[in-house]
């Protein structure tokens, strides 16, 4: 590939989706088996519960080049561990608000509740989120130059 061609290369965002094992990951499975599509930019990381997501994970994802981070868990009240997502909800609300306060685009972070039966919701959410991130462009504010290729 010549240099010229390379610069013309279309921007492909990287989206990290932390999906809880019991609902959203199963929702992604359902989306797959129902032949619903979601963008290939979305990389799923399976976590036991949405409350497993440590704020450091979110930052690390951005550090390693993510342009958007989405956390998906069971609907409030349906968490496999009863209350994990309630705690996650408070933590992520505060974390996202802090990132916004530091001037990092608030559209880059998102939390969604997606059950195992909601393959359609999984697919539409991911498509929507990918579109938003695509419009926002590259994450420049919270990246680590040392991690760039």
């Amino acid at each position, binding site marked *: 590939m010549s240099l010229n061609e390379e610069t013309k290369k279309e921007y492909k965002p990287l989206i990290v989706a932390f999906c809880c094992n019991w609902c959203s990951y199963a929702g992604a499975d359902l989306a797959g088996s129902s032949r619903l599509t979601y963008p290939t930019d979305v990389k799923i990381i399976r976590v036991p519960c949405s409350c497993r997501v440590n704020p450091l994970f979110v930052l690390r994802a951005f550090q390693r080049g993510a342009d958007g981070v989405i956390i998906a868990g069971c609907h409030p009240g349906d968490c496999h561990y009863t209350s994990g997502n*309630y705690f996650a909800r*408070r933590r992520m*609300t*505060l974390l996202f608000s*802090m990132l*916004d*306060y530091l001037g990092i685009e608030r559209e880059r972070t998102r939390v969604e509740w997606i059950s195992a039966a909601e393959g359609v919701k999984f697919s539409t959410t991911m498509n929507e989120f990918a579109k938003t991130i695509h419009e926002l462009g590259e994450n420049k504010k919270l990246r680590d130059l*040392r991690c760039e290729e």
Partner: protein
Amino acid sequence: MTELIKAKVSELLANQTADRVLGWKKGEFFYDETPAVFQAEELDDLVYDGFSAPNLSKYLIKESKKEGKVIALLKPCDTYSFNQLIMEHRINRDNVYVVGVPCRGNLDINKIREKGIKGIQSIKEQGDELIIETIYGTKTLPREEVILDRCLCCKGSQHMVADEVIESGEPAWEAKADRFEMVTKLENMTSDERFAFWRGELSKCIRCNACRNVCPACSCLQCVFDDPASKVQAKSNADDFEENMFHIIRAFHVAGRCTDCGECSRVCPQGIPLHLLNRKFIKDIDTFYGEYQAGADIEAKGPLTEFNKDDVEPSIVKERGGK
């Protein structure tokens, strides 16, 4: 004041209420007082004045695990941190005798210097005046003009916990400023302006860890930032990201537990306004989950260890709009 405290403390040591005192002594310079433990015969070195800023509650984690009982001199704001540490089971309450000391607001040596006063040798507090001895002669300043920033947003003169309180008879110090003023101002900026503001501040960080070491809420036995496997120490200042990460995570780890004691900003050698990060969390917690002051009530549940079924969704951050 120092004499009043010494008298009280000697009495308590003599009647064997406790066997030692945690207080302040002069540091290398008269204005950088440091925490110290005194035996009965060492009380001469004990001082208490406008420069007795260090919050002593954190030192009780170690001190209260030793044998015998220790007297802790706590200013009103220090008692919030003490309570918070009790809630977190870090202090052995039975081994501490808390003596509440009155506070008139701490002094800021930098503000005194900014008044153009040079060659300062000693400072005496006389009522509302400071008598400053310099190599160029004696100067005076109204005390109120050089109060440490954090004390301008004082939480009040009440001790949240004390076995005994020393009364000074002097009028109590009162808050003069709204502690969320600057946070609101930042919130009203555009996101690019905020980003520029924080890059400007956080890029000054030399990662000396003073803010973490002084913080009574940062009392983990093993801090994430000390984990050799993560290699964060070695990378500490290599990239913007590390600076952001350190401060976001540190602020997050104390969210809901930070009593807003202001020690972090006070000790930062680079003058980074770290309290603006903590106060953002406090402000958000207050608006989303109801007003909460860490350390005010040891029966209360921390906002991040609790939840309501109808809490706001994280999308509130977007819905709130703003720039």
